[in-house]
């Protein structure tokens, strides 16, 4: 302690503030989700702490996603932060997060000097940490007020859940590991496909009149992360800002940045058939459960394929495994129109799609046994799932 006191005479104070420990821990927990220990960029092993005049911002990043947590000076008449000198510092994330969790008192004082030595005091304990230069930390895009797109949190989470499951997991076409967003005329279209199936969802968003964004491909991994950190119960809206290299989601006191995928997303519109030869309306839950049962035998086989056949007024689902045996099940359909049909498809893809639909009934439109078929919830045109059949009959 004495040592630093001596050295402090030659150095100047770079940052100083005190903060409520609970708020700090909460913020650090948020940003730690973005920090990875396996980064190739040394500075990203740290958390950036920025003390501004309006509050504290913590930033963590693994360069793919970055999370900023904001702690305001006061909220609901409670004071959380008091700033003595604005400034910033980067501290080793792992150590810093462990330290703040275990600090003894309810308030934490943090001060950094111009040599980046950072003193953290709380109650009777004092830590002196070697900081890193905040100038070295990546610059994240700034929010520009004019091009903001607004969407409700729960709608955003739904939209992610209903599309991201269909992204490709193989690296052969990297652009397919993301969800393609297009925004035009206040409408957001999201499409994900791994070239065996496709999920798409359109929703209305609030945006500037002429805001148009094309080919914004967001990595599926980032969207999953985003979905996890968004608060379920808040009825608040999320603001979205799109820059040339990153997309930013801003919730209350939390900002989530993701890098975008490079490359042109394939044109998926022409994959979607316009006409149909067989149309079926069926209960979502009943159909899903039947497929699930049939898949019990099918998934023992490598491909997890179930067969599907239209009968009069009902459909037959079957599957077999040479070793285990067979299963047949008839499910009552609400409506069957058009030609008779026999088709096979992956039970997993079907279950993935059905489990994302909230409506009671779905409409499935087939255009022959070898053509992809469409699944749409009845009464909601925004959602569309497409599955490619498997050749077995």
């Amino acid at each position, binding site marked *: 302690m004495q040592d630093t006191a001596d050295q402090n005479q030659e150095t100047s104070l770079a940052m100083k503030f005190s903060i409520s420990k609970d708020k700090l821990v909460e913020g650090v927990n948020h940003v730690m989700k973005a920090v990875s220990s396996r980064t190739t960029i040394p500075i990203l092993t740290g958390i950036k702490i920025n003390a501004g005049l309006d509050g504290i911002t913590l930033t963590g990043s693994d360069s793919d996603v970055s999370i900023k947590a904001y702690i305001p000076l006061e909220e609901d008449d409670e004071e959380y932060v008091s700033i003595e000198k604005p400034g910033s510092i980067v501290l080793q994330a792992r150590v810093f997060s462990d330290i703040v969790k275990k600090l003894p008192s309810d308030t934490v004082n943090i001060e950094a000097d111009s040599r980046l030595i950072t003193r953290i005091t709380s109650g009777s304990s004092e830590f002196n940490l070697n900081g890193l230069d905040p*100038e070295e930390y990546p610059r994240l895009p700034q929010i520009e007020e004019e091009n903001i797109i607004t969407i409700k949190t729960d709608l955003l989470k739904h939209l992610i859940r209903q599309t991201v499951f269909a992204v490709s997991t193989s690296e052969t076409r990297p652009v397919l590991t993301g969800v393609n967003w297009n925004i035009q005329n206040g409408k957001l279209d999201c499409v994900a496909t791994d070239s065996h199936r496709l999920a798409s969802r359109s929703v209305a968003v609030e945006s500037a009149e002429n805001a148009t964004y094309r080919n914004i491909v967001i990595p599926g991994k980032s969207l999953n992360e985003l979905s996890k950190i968004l608060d379920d119960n808040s009825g608040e809206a999320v603001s979205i800002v799109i820059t040339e290299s990153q997309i930013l989601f801003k919730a209350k006191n939390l900002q989530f940045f993701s890098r975008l995928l490079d490359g042109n997303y394939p044109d998926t519109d022409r994959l979607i058939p316009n006409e149909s030869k067989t149309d079926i309306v069926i209960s979502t839950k009943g159909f899903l459960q039947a497929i699930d049962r049939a898949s019990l035998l099918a998934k023992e086989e490598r491909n997890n394929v179930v067969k599907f056949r239209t009968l009069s007024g009902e459909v037959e689902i079957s599957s077999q495994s040479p070793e285990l045996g067979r299963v047949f099940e008839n499910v009552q359909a609400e409506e069957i129109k058009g030609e008779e049909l026999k088709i096979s498809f992956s039970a997993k893809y079907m279950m993935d799609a059905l489990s994302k639909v909230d409506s009671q009934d779905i409409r499935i439109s087939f255009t022959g046994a070898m053509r992809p078929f469409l699944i749409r919830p009845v009464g909601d045109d925004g959602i569309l799932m497409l599955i490619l059949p498997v050749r077995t009959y």
Partner: protein
Amino acid sequence: MSWKELAQTQATAARILTNALTQGQLAHAYLIEGQKGTGKRKAAKLLSQSFFCQNKEGAEPCGHCRDCRRVNSGNHPDVVWVKPDGQSIKKEQVSNLIKEFSYRGVESRRKIFIIEQADHMTIQAANSLLKFIEEPNGETIAVLMTEQMQQLLDTIISRCQILTFRPLSRQQMEEQLVAKELPRPLARLSAALTNDIEDALEYCSNEWFAEARQKVIQFMEELINQSQSVLLKIYGSFSPHFDDQSKMDIGLDLILLWYKDLMSLHLERMDDIIYIDQLDLLNRQALKSSLQQVTDDMSSVLSAKKRLSAHVNQQSVMEQLVLMLQGGVSNEL
């Protein structure tokens, strides 16, 4: 480091790159090929700085803006720098590289990929790299570095602009060392020993090296005087000084350079002489030996080097070498 400095040693490459930078006509992939110590890494760093620097003058990066500093410290998020982790480029590094190819930049759409020892890449990695450099998108650059260009896939080579880095000439290196106030005899010797200016600097500032030079000169003196105690000298002072294989290898190189000087003397190429302060001794020995003999002696030293690298006991290697140089044993042994 600046482009001006680079131009002193790699004039052609520096000119190509600075012209491309000032005219905004950078290629999307460069292959820097050249031996160790020729400044490949420095050039790549310089190129990254010029690529990102906000206040560059012409092609020169300012060197102290945020971007320049981060390129230097390895913290720039849009500079993806891959160097072999040990012997080869690891699978994890490759998958990270492939991922980076498919993402846009962190701060802007500009990105630069730098791959050291690109010949160490696996075929899989090389192919994904190929896919990337086949479809460049204006704002990214790939810089590959290699010491063995022939080990790269032809398909990769054909898609890169190749920059050949010439090894530093001995004279250039010697002048650089002398400019750093190092004694000329030592500078000349270390420049003859290595192409790497850093290595040479280390030799010159190392006391061991200066002593090694003395030992070798003493050894040659004993040989010329046909002293009976050469072998004793070897046991007593020579071997203890060169006490491991790499040191011994340097010792043998020093001896080899001595014979090369003798040859230069015979051919009257005075400029090439390396032990410039030992002209007397060299002249005396040159008078006593024929050109043929010098050649034979050189091949004796070379075969000693070969045996050393085959892990023959160092002592035996030296004993045999001494006997051969004294003319006692024929080279065929």
